[in-house]
């Protein structure tokens, strides 16, 4: 299973910094994801620093091997108290989730999270721990076992208190209002991504606030435990000619999205699977070769030049272009688990000294793309040399 998590935020109006802070990290080796949402006291720069410190420290504590409960308890006992308001400097929600669905959640001060399954709200058991140093601080600890398609929604109080004082929402949106809003959205778009759902919650919350201006920092985190979107990228012909058909069949039978990068590879598939290829000419001469079309593949591009450019786009976060490399970058980012099937047969023509030096070795480029996808975009990427 794949844990799709994302956060959307809005600053309190007239402020230049977010008073809430969200951080998350994936550990692909252990299938673990840790995320923390923290709401700093007040708003603006001061709140930003408090929330950032709390969230970052907590994430490091948990990742460093501390049990989530111990890590949160340490923070709970250590967080200073505001002299004026006599309350904690920052509240937090910490999530430690594994891809087998086991999840631990600890909350202190933030609105209670929402656990959704089949349009129903589940009520998990929880334990309460009171701080040894501050009697008014209590953290709630939950142990969950997530099932496929479960969703969790976390938010700062900017969401649940939005619209407070207005004739329609005297007490604000509250948790019940948020649940209603999310369930209605999910009825219309059951497969909505976490990024879109979090964005939707924040946009709606802001609309409800007086004058449609955020009266507090508004943050929403959406977590979706779902089937991974699998993708296969076939690039380069196999080293051994006699295995062409074998790998073409693997490509054909792969259950997920498929891309082909390389003219020889596309021809191989066309020949072995008896599929027609239609090639378009590129829009701008001198940049990248255009894409081709073949039944059974979502994307067919040229090889090395396109892959090299894709790595560059992924590195610089440039995803809006319309060339083949940007299309490939978007294809990769729309997937969760990506397998690169990389052929080891060399194209002797690429070693002609007359060719520009930009032609890199396929394996080097694929390794770079794979690293970027894993480290920068939290994807699961694997490379298989054939």
């Amino acid at each position, binding site marked *: 299973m794949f844990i799709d998590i994302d956060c959307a935020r809005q600053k309190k109006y007239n402020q230049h910094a977010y008073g809430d802070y969200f951080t998350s990290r994936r550990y692909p080796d252990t299938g673990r994801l840790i995320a923390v949402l923290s709401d700093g006291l007040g708003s603006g720069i001061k709140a930003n620093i408090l929330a950032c410190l709390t969230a970052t420290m907590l994430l490091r504590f948990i990742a460093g091997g501390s049990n989530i409960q111990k890590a949160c308890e340490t923070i709970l006992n250590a967080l200073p108290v505001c002299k004026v308001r006599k309350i904690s400097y920052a509240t937090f929600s910490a999530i430690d989730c594994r891809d087998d669905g086991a999840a631990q959640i600890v909350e202190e001060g933030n609105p209670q999270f929402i656990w959704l399954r089949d349009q129903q709200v589940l009520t998990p058991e929880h334990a309460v721990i009171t701080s040894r140093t501050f009697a008014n601080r209590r953290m709630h600890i939950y142990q969950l076992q997530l099932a496929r398609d479960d969703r969790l929604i976390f938010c700062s109080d900017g969401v649940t208190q939005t619209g407070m004082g207005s004739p329609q929402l005297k007490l604000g949106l509250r948790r019940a209002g948020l649940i209603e809003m999310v369930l209605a959205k999910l009825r219309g778009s059951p497969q909505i991504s976490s990024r879109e759902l979090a964005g939707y919650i924040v946009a709606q919350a802001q609309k409800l606030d007086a004058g449609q201006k955020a009266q507090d920092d508004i943050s929403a985190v959406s977590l979706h435990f779902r089937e991974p979107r699998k993708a296969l990228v076939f690039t380069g012909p196999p080293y051994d000619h006699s295995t062409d058909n074998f790998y073409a069949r693997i490509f054909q039978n792969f259950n997920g999205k498929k891309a082909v990068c390389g*003219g020889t590879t596309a021809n191989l598939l066309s020949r072995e699977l008896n599929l027609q290829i*239609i090639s378009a*000419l*590129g829009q701008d001469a001198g*940049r990248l070769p255009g894409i081709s079309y073949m039944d059974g593949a979502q994307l067919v591009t040229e090889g090395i030049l396109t892959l090299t450019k894709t790595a560059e786009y992924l590195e610089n976060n440039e995803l809006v272009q319309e060339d083949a490399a940007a299309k490939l970058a978007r294809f990769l980012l729309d997937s969760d688990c990506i397998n690169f099937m990389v052929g080891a047969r060399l194209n002797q*023509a690429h070693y002609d000294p007359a060719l520009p030096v930009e032609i890199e070795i396929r394996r080097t480029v694929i390794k770079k793309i794979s690293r970027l996808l894993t480290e920068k975009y939290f994807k699961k990427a694997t490379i298989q040399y054939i």
Partner: protein
Amino acid sequence: MSKLAVKICLGTTCFVMGGSELQELPEKLPASYKKLVSISGCPCLGQCGAAATRAPYVLIGDELLSEASIEKILKKITEKLNHAQ
């Protein structure tokens, strides 16, 4: 009469050896040829390993053109169309 098929190789080698410029061929084609010629790309013509000739390659009808340029292609198209008449 079926159209004369022109296939421009868009493989890596051809592309970097000048094939990228050949993508402008549809704009450079004289208006009178447009009904007689169909231009398309091709993932790879598989010719880049050949020792005797050089990229970029273009297939015009059944004839392979090496070290292709817009001028060379237009000349070959004219030749082919005249021959067909």
